[in-house]
Structures are given as structure tokens and as C-alpha cells.
């Protein structure tokens, strides 16, 4: 939760696009951590014993999230690169032309 909150606040207050991006990654990884931790914690519960895949479900999810995050990083970094090329800046507040 702490990591997640740091990520959210980071997205909200930082203006550098790369930092914002890292904060997003931070949020994703905090969720990953949470999933793995809960998975381990609940692995011994009676519900988990009844269903053979129950214990590993969360860990499989984490792998998926990591794959998606990797893909997202490539797209996101590409966007930032293009952004810098066009505006010579990575300040997100600079990009406020899409409004009323």
C-alpha cells in the first residue's frame, strides 16, 4: 500500500514524464508484490486445498502483469522519445493543449 501510494502521489505531483512513468511502474509492482504475498498467505487455507490451481492463480497473474508492463514500457518510452523530439521537453504540464 505504501509503495502504491508513493506511485500515485508521484504521478500526481511530478512534472517530468519519465518520473511519472516510473511511478506508474511502481504502482504496478506494488500490486505484484501484494498478489504474491496474498497468494503465499492463503495457500494453506481450506479453500485453496479444494481447488488445485487456486494457490498459483495469483502468481500466474503476476507474470501476466510483468509481460504487459514490459510491453507498456516500450510503448511509453517510445512516446516519451517522440515527445522530446517534438517539444524538447518532457514536462507533462506543457501538454495541455487538448482542452475545451
Amino acid at each position, binding site marked *: 500500500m505504501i509503495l502504491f501510494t508513493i506511485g500515485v502521489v508521484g504521478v500526481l505531483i511530478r512534472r517530468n514524464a519519465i518520473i511519472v512513468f516510473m511511478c506508474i511502474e511502481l504502482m504496478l509492482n506494488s500490486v505484484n508484490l501484494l498478489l504474491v504475498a496474498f497468494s503465499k498467505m492463503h495457500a494453506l487455507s481450506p479453500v485453496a486445498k479444494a481447488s488445485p490451481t487456486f494457490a498459483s492463480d495469483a502468481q500466474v497473474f503476476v507474470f501476466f502483469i510483468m509481460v504487459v508492463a514490459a510491453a507498456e514500457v516500450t510503448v511509453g518510452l517510445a512516446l516519451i522519445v517522440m515527445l522530446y523530439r517534438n517539444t524538447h521537453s518532457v514536462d507533462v*504540464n506543457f501538454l495541455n493543449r487538448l482542452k475545451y
Partner: protein
Amino acid sequence: MSNMKLLILLIPVLPLIGFMITGLGRNVLSKSLSGFIGSVVVLASLVISFMAFLQVRESGSILATYFDFINIHNLHIAFDFFIDPLTSIFLLVITGVGFLIHVYSIGYMHEESSKDFSKYFSFLNLFVFSMLLLVIANNFAVMYIGWEGVGLCSYLLIGYWFKNPEYTSAGKKAFVMNRIGDFGFLLAVFWVISRLGTTSFSEVFTAESLAKLSQSDITGITLLLFLGATAKSAQLPLYTWLPDAMAGPTPVSALIHAATMVTAGVYLIARSNVWYTMAPFTQGVIAVVSIATMLLAASIALKQNDIKKVLAYSTVSQLGYMFLALSVGAYTAAVFHVMTHAFFKALLFLGAGSVIHAMGGEQDMQGMGGLKSRLKITHITMLIACLAIAGIPPLSGFFSKDEILSASFMKSPMLWGLGVFGALLTAFYMFRLYAMTFLGKFRGSSEQEANLHESPLSMTLPLLVLAGLSIVGGFIGIPEAIMSGAHQLGDFLAPVFAPSAKLMGPHTVSHNTEYILMAVSAIVAIAAMIVAWNKFSKYTIGNEKDSAFGTVLRNKWYVDEFYEKIIVQPLKSISRFFNNTIDIKGIDGVVNGVGSVVQYASRQLRYLQSGQIGGYVLLMVLGFIALLIIQLFL
């Protein structure tokens, strides 16, 4: 039997086909071709109707079911036709007189352009189709199609010369008046459905169905149906459309007034005769309305100078007779009078058309006179028609009128007295018309005099045929008093009216009384005829002085003006009120108000879209937190 079923279907469908051919092909068909098609389809219907008539006569009524027309929940209305003696008589009259009018129209309308000519014939065919559907239907729903159809066609035909605004407004008047009646008819049908769950004629008039209806049901239904009939058959208070309907071409007037539309109301009541016999209150209403209509219309006819207007009011008055017969339970007499009236009134209109044709469009009788020697055939046939409508024995009108009068005498001598007075007026105004038109000296312009000519064969032939029918038409209903067992029409129709006859019990008037009644009505008619003959054969313009009462009559009792003041003007001011206050201020205000509120709100909300990504994310996070709190704590 299936052959017969197909043939019966053809009776109304043939004119429909004719309507489509002449209507769709109006730009390509030549005049003679569309006239030919229009007439031939009606002739074919006539032939089939005659076959059906023979079949009915030999082996009783025919019922032919084609398909399910309406099928909802437990309401099943089939599309079926039913031919019983009553229907077969009407079929013959409609197709027979209709055919003659088609033939006549070929001659009468020859000056129209070929496109308008085809249009005219297509309307005429559609009219015949609607009317045939009306009488051949076996339930109120299918009948209603025809009922509306004739209303529509009358509008189309009355407003046929639509470039004249006066004529179009006459058409509109007919349509609106008919709508008022249709509304009554429709309510009655709904009432029947809600009580009996069926509209089929073969079911609603049976003893079981009648047992399901309370007395107030029957009275209500019959009154509503009668409202429908007053509009279609031009009774008080809805008759005013009919005299205005003279705006249409003359053959149309003949078709509407003689053979078809106006008899629809009579047919409707004759068809529902059982109900009417069981509703004495409605019968009383009909009696009062019919007598009032008859006398009012006859008195107006005394002072009209337009030849067609006289005939129009005489139609209204004769319809009053038919309803008088219906109100006293003499259904056979009513149908008999419908039939004879179809012959002589069609003849009168067509004769008047022939006169107008010869006079080059002149309709005012003040400008006529002395046409006797110039229009020989027209003159003879018109004379026969006048004698017939005036009830001079032994022409057809005498028998039917006498039957009505003797039936009303049995009910109450007062009805009879008023009926005879009506007959007197009838004889008087008919011979006023005859004398002003054919006797005396010619009063028109010399140009008109030079152009006077007898009409072509296609016009005179129908006149001759109808004249023949007007003479012999009465012999199918010779009263018992003169020759026993000679009332063939009565015997033929007896099965249709049997349930009513059973309810009413035997009724006979002694032969001596009947002789006296006949003699009185005949003498009265002849006397009125002679007076009118003498008075108007020496007519010159302006020698007819109007008394105060005469002015009232000439102005048609100011009924139109009265309606204008009482109904039309208040309605107009109410509409103006609705338009200016409720519609523009109320409804438009609400609609526009909603629109401007939305516009204003969105203009304010727009500023939330700031373009700052951080702002969006913040709102999103706040939203999530709010959702979380709701989920967890509320």
C-alpha cells in the same frame, strides 16, 4: 363451392383492379380505353352479383372465409364475405346502377383531359369497390374498411374539380361530417367487441349473443351505430354535407346519392335489425330524427333554384323516409325504398346532368324552361322519375312509399300524417322542378338556345334503362292488399328479418284501412302535382315573391349559418387559444427551456476539461477513493 368462393371474391376485387389500372395508367390510357375498363369491371361485378343472387335464391346464404384478418389474444376477426338476401339486393343495386352511371359518365365527362378522365374513372371504381366491400362483409371490421372507403372516395369525387376552392371545401365538409359518424360507428364496434369478443354478423345477432347484452348495451350500441348512419345517410344533424356534395360532377352525385354511399346507413341498420327491434328508445330517436329530416329537407327543396340542390334536398328527405321505415321496424319497406329510390334518384340526377350538359353547365332553373321539345328523351325519362318519386301509382315510388306509410300508420297515425305531408311536399317540389325546367318558355340566353342538343347515346341509354326500372321496379313489392303473395321482395328478404319479426309479433293492418291509406297518399300526391304544374309552368323570372317564411326556406333554415356560429366559430377560437397560449407559450416554452438549460449547464461544465493531465488523474484517484469508501464503509 370453392368456385363460388372465388367468384364472390371477384365482386369487390374487380372494381379494385379497374381502379388500379385506370389509376396507375392515367398518363397512358386513352379516354375511351379507361372509360371502357372502368365500366366493364363494374359490369362483370354485376354479372357475378346476379349469379350470387340466383344462388342465394336457390340454396340460401353463402359464407366465404378467406383468411384471418386480425388475430390478437382471444380476438379473432376473419376476412370473410357473407351473401344473404339483403346483401344480394344491395349488390345488384350498387353494381347495376353503378354500371349505368359509369356508362353515362363516358358521355358526360368527355370534355375532360384524358388524364383527369382516367382519374375520374379510377375514383369511381374505388368508390364502387368500397361500397361493395361494405355490404358484402361478414363482420364489422371489414365493413368498416368499406365504410371509411366510401367516405374517402366521396371526398375525392366531390373535390374532383379541385382547382375551385369552393368545391374542395365541399369535399372537406363531407369528409369531416363523415368522420363524426365514423367515430360513432367505431365506438359501437369496440363496444360490441368488449361485450361479445367478436364482430362477425353470423355470431353477434344470435340468441346467445343477445342474451349477453344488457338492455343498456343494446341501446348504447344502436345509438352509436345510428350516429354513424346519420353521417353516411345524411340525417339531422349531420346532413349538411350532402347538398354541398353537389360540387362534384353530376354522375358522382347520382352515384353517391342514389346507389351507394347514402344507403350505407340504411344497410347498417337493416343488417343490425335485431338490435334495433330490441331497443325501443333508439327506434324512438330514429323516428323523431327521420321525420324532422324529411320535413326540413323537403321544405328547403321547395325554394331552391339550383336543379341539383333540389335533388339533393329531395335525397335527404327520401332518406328520412327510409329511416322512418327502419324506426317502425319495417325493414323490408326500407330496403324496398332504397331500391326504388336508387332507380328514380339516379335517373333524376342523370337527367339533370343531361339538362346541365345541354345548357352548357347552367344549373339555375330560372334560366331554363321549355326544354320539353328540345330534349325529348331526357324530358320523358325525367317525367317518369318525377312521377315515381312523387308516389303516383303505379310507378315504383308509390309502392315503396306506401309500404312505409302503412307501416308507420300501424305504429302511430301521427307518424303517418307527417309522412303524408312529406309526400305532399315531395310531389310539389318535384313538379316545380319539372315545370320550371321543361315547361313554359325558354329563359336562357340565345346563345344557349342555339346550342341546345340532346345528349349522346351513352348518356341517354342509361336514362332509358333507369326509366324502365323506375316504372317496373315497384312490382316486386306489391302489397298483400292488392294481390296476395305478390310481395316477392318481402318473401325474399323474410329470412333476414325473421328474428325481428318474431320479436315484434304479427302485425297486419286491415285491407280496407290500407286501401284508404293508399288512396289518401295517392290523392295528396296528385293534388300537389297539379298545383305545382299549374303554378310553375308559366314561371317567369321574378314572379315568385318570397314571404318571410319563404326567405327562411330559401336560405335553408340558416342551418349552415347556425353551425358556423355554434360549432365552427367556437372551435376556431379554441384552436386559436390552444395555438397562441398553450402551444406557443406552454409546450414550446417547455421544450425550448429544457434545451437552453442543457446548453447552459454544459457550457459551465466545459471548464472542467482543462487539459491538465494531472487534474484528470487527481479526479480519477479521488473517484476511486470515493468508490472504495462506499464499498468498504457504507
